[in-house]
């Protein structure tokens, strides 16, 4: 009897704990996606008349601008992830291994500081720096390096700067965590056995940090791919981002069917690239997220 009561109580607790998660997942993720998928398969044949078809996906595949933007967004996101990793790795190594105590905490906090202001304000910060009458332009003119004002906004490089800046923290946090778990004596053992700096980095530090590198890269990649604000504000008319296409279909053109199809293509793209990266690095989701 007693045992059964305990088991029922434990079960009740389990259900209570699980409910918010299930509600969250089903209401905000599963149900909208199912609906989106159904919408994406609808083809409008007349006023309030629809039929099920793959027409929206066909439109996507048939229009070079859509495909081109799709590809460009993917390549730029991969590039942004790679640049973020290259910058974040030495920073994380320094924070995790070279400094100790208060300085370590202070440096970690400094990485967090940019996130105290909203993304919009941060992006406007870059505009103040990069625009024609901005800080950098004036500085270059003052130094006599250029004759007239330089426009550094509204191109791919500006988008890249904005994306990398926005993503830094999401790469630094998992990297610092995994690098901190690497015992100092393992690195010392590497030196003791005749290893040099680069070989220890290649054979000991990077393999150890691999789960952190992969999980950081996945997060940064997803954030870049799904970013709307940064490409919209810093990018020019030639720097179209795929999210901008989705926005324009939903909001500007009221073509929810095509917008939904675009949304699914983006989901498919990010899943495919993450899967490919996991396969290439020999990691699993459990390993990188645990």
């Amino acid at each position, binding site marked *: 009897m007693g045992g059964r009561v305990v088991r029922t109580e434990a079960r009740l607790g389990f259900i209570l704990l699980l409910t918010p998660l299930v509600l969250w997942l089903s209401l905000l993720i599963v149900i909208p996606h199912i609906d989106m998928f159904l919408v994406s398969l609808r083809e409008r044949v007349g006023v309030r008349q629809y039929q099920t078809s793959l027409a929206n996906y066909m439109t996507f595949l048939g229009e070079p601008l859509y495909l081109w933007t799709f590809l460009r967004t993917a390549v730029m996101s991969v590039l942004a992830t790679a640049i973020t990793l290259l910058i974040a790795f030495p920073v994380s190594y320094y924070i995790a291994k070279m400094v100790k105590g208060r300085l370590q905490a202070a440096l970690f906090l400094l990485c967090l500081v940019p996130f105290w202001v909203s993304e919009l304000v941060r992006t406007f910060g870059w505009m103040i720096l990069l625009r024609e009458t901005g800080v950098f332009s004036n500085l270059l003119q003052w130094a006599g390096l250029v004759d007239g004002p330089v426009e550094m906004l509204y191109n791919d490089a500006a988008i890249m700067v904005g994306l990398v800046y926005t993503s830094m923290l999401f790469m630094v946090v998992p990297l610092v965590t995994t690098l901190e778990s690497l015992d100092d004596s393992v690195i*010392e*053992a590497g030196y*003791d*056995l*005749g*290893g040099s700096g680069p070989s220890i980095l290649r*054979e000991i530090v990077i393999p150890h940090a691999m789960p952190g590198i992969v999980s950081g890269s996945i997060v940064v990649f997803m954030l870049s791919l799904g970013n709307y604000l940064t490409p919209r504000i810093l990018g020019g008319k030639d720097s179209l981002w795929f999210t901008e296409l989705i926005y324009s279909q939903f909001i500007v053109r009221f073509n929810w069917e095509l917008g939904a199809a675009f949304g699914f293509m983006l989901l498919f793209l990010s899943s495919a690239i993450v899967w490919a990266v996991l396969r290439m690095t020999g990691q699993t989701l459990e390993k990188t997220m645990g």
Partner: protein
Amino acid sequence: MTPDLECTSLTKQFGETTAVQDVSFSVQPGSFFSILGPSGCGKTTIMRMIAGFLEPTSGDILIKGNSVLDVAPNKRPVNMVFQHLALFPMMNIADNIGYGLRRAGLPRAEITRKVGEVLERIGLPDVGQRKVDELSGGQKQRIAIARCMVLEPDVLLLDEPLGALDLKLREHMKIELKALQAAFDTTFVYITHDQSEALVMSDQIAVMNEGRFEQLGTARELYYRPQTSFVAGFVGDANRWTGKIERVDGEELEMRTDSGLLMKGARHGRALSAGDQAEVFVRPEAIKLAKNSGDLAAFDNQITGTVQNVLFNGAASRIMVHAANGAGQIEVALPQSGEFSHTAKGEEVHIGWTAEQGNCFAWGGV
């Protein structure tokens, strides 16, 4: 013969604190040298200086007669077995052992051959493809040693490598380490806070305290002839009394303890004279236990007391005797001949020891 390792006036300061102070020693080729001391005595600092991870403030380190102060840790002919072994978890066993050989640029075939040989030698020929965490504690220990020995270093440094093992395995590894050292015929420098590890394995032991060497000698010398009171108290167990010297006669002396008891002891060549504050150490196993006082006629110190406690611990059993004459509580080893196996609490016993067994030292009075 040139010693494999020689340290001269080695000193290391961290800011204001002196971790190692004017330490000099040399280690003969093929010998097992231990540095024994409590934690924080500076022994790890010495080891890290030899390995090259710390730079001495002053003094010199010579390996096979050549100073290595300007040699980076990855170029020194010494290797180190770390306290927690520091095996590379991202590699399998064969790659772990082959790491140093790969770094030395050996051809692949030779690396495979050497790794196979050393695995054979440590008695684990089939573990090459296993992962580090698939091995037991004792096996990892042997892999860590093999990983260093495959590079044929002049000196192997071991930093308390048995600390993480359980008691039974530790006892076993002590014997095995000694056997491995003999098999590889390499100079081992071993640091530990565990005296039994040092006593069992070493040819030479340096007892270290507060950055200095207290005494350097064989296990026997440290145990039977401690030169300082720290060594007498740290190596082995001892009953200790403090008091004042009353009379010195050659090597023998008489000391009045603080509780007023007269004890006979020996100075074993140390400068002690009447009136000095002193302390005397008597080992529990140096005390003779008897049923009646007549059996103890040959002993200089004789005390009668009651058994206050029996600390049964197999071969290392002790009894605590409460002395009738105010000598306090005395720890006495229980002879294993069977005669005293039924000694019980409250029983009256007689104990005695010769003056020679009472090691006397001058005492600052703390």
